[in-house]
């Protein structure tokens, strides 16, 4: 038995697989193949980023959250308020959204350090609910249930205005998604990322290895909040509107569904889950505007019973069989 740590496997995992290159060609192809669906595709990209943010804390660090919309919403409102105040530059708005959401995440991170899965579910939900109630109360600032309008965005880089077809919005969202995804990918394959997985798998052992568990959890939770905030900011900027729904419980719950559907702990699971869930929702809703929920529920049950580990799990099984 060797005494040195053989990190070839993890180094190899950090390299980009051919399939990944292929995957990232898809958004570019989609732009040309589905020019009339860019609004939906932008939403998928935003939700994918949101799902990646949840995967960071759930799939890698094991923190279950039913209130991740808190950061999404905070980011959305931050970007909205900035634009309302006259600073409509999109990139500035995203930066602001990320910073504010990250701050809220950092402040509330101590709440998720202890307790069981159920505790974390409830505490995160409680925080998000309180933010929702506050946003409703502060109608003067947030617009409350009626929503915040007057979010005027200046053209991206001073050149590309947000158009009706959603072309600018789409390219913008996909670009942001890719950049942040690339960053996240590097993080999870770094020693920091590996330590997170260790914490998720066996939180009692990690301190013995010298890992400052709480510090790591706080760091990743803040990071997850930053990503979620940026996703929220993207939503505000591409729709020029903020509805109080961004802080709602259903948004958090739907996100959890999307991530579990796609498969946790792989980053791609979030993206796939978002793509499939939103496409199915849209498709079913068009066919049967009244009862699409029934079919979606059935789909979810099927996935759980026959595709454990979500879509990524299923793909891995198929890949293993083919290999």
């Amino acid at each position, binding site marked *: 038995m060797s005494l040195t740590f053989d990190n070839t496997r993890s180094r190899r995992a950090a390299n980009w697989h051919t399939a990944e290159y292929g995957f990232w060609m898809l958004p570019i192809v989609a732009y040309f193949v589905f020019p009339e669906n860019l609004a939906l595709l932008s939403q998928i990209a935003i939700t994918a980023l949101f799902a990646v943010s949840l995967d960071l804390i759930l799939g890698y660090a094991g923190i279950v959250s039913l209130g991740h919309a808190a950061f999404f919403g905070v980011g959305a409102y931050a970007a909205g308020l900035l634009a309302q105040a006259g600073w409509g530059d999109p990139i500035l708005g995203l930066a602001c959204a990320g910073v504010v959401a990250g701050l809220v995440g950092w402040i509330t991170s101590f709440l998720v350090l202890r307790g069981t899965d*159920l505790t974390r579910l409830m505490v995160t939900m409680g925080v998000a609910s309180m933010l929702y109630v506050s946003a409703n109360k502060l109608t003067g600032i947030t617009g409350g249930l009626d929503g915040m309008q007057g979010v005027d965005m200046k053209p991206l880089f001073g050149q590309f205005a947000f158009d009706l077809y959603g072309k600018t919005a789409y390219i913008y969202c996909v670009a942001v998604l890719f950049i942040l995804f690339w960053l996240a990918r590097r993080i999870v394959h770094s020693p920091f990322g590996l330590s997170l997985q260790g914490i998720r798998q066996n939180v009692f052992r990690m301190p013995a290895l010298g890992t400052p568990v709480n510090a790591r959890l706080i760091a990743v939770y803040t990071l997850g909040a930053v990503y979620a905030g940026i996703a929220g900011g993207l939503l505000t900027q591409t729709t020029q509107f903020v509805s109080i729904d961004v802080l709602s419980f259903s948004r958090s719950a739907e996100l959890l569904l999307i991530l579990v559907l796609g498969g946790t702990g792989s980053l791609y699971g979030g993206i796939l889950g978002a793509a499939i869930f939103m496409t199915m929702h849209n498709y079913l809703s068009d066919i049967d505007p009244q009862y699409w929920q029934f079919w*979606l529920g059935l789909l979810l049950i099927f996935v759980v019973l026959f595709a454990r580990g979500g879509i990524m799990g299923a793909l891995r099984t198929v890949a293993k069989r083919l290999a």
Partner: protein
Amino acid sequence: MTVLFDGVASGILLFLISVGLSVTLGLMNFVNLAHGAFAMLGGYVCVVLLNRFNVPFLATLPIAMIVAALAGVVLERTLYRRLYGASHLDQVLFSIGLVFMSISTANFFFGDHQQPLHLPPMLKGQFHLAGADIGAYRLFLIVVGLALAVALQWLVAGTKFGASLRAAVDNPRAARGLGIDVDRVFVATFALGTALAALGGALGIEMLGLDPEFPITYIVYFLIVVAVGGSGNIKGSLIASLILGICDVEGKYYVPQIGAFVIYLVMVATLIVRPQGLFGRSATK
């Protein structure tokens, strides 16, 4: 004083609709977010019997419980048991799928409006007692709730079934080794949990209303009670419900501006201090 009485009644109602979840979550370690769907089932059975077949209100309650228990058994045998060992997340996904299907089904059969409920005259109105205005229905709820709590506590702690259940939860293998039919115990417990949900749903219509969105509208409340009380704990659920109910009602009376906040604040505060809930077992995954 009236406000205090109302708070207690509100708390007991929370207890009635959540105790079933405490049973399934705590005793079977299954995150059944479809709990609200069984409550809704109980509600619709009650309403249909009451409005279409003129069955007296009190008689509809046991029928609702039996129907839900049967539904619970069928679902448990076919679907739930496959997921006992699954991760909590998978259970969440599954139960939400069930919720979606149940909402659509209820919408299809009953439409999306509120179901009318007309109580028997005995349970309506108020009377004055000890400086407080006591609502008849609320008093009824409190009596039923307390009786139920006592009965459940006796069942779990004082009977052989209860002992088998606790054994089966703590260590299924050892329990089987002792000749306890763990499968049957789980089915029975699940049926009990769903029957309790149905009872809560039917009793709650008067105060919470009944429409197809019920499972999603109130899911937050069930979870809060279970989280604060500690899952699997009948006494804990009761006390947690009472605290939440009283705080919520008193908060809305004295400081209406923060009304909706209180319940979440109490929950978060409790979980910060005691992450396993007031009476839960110490934090283990």
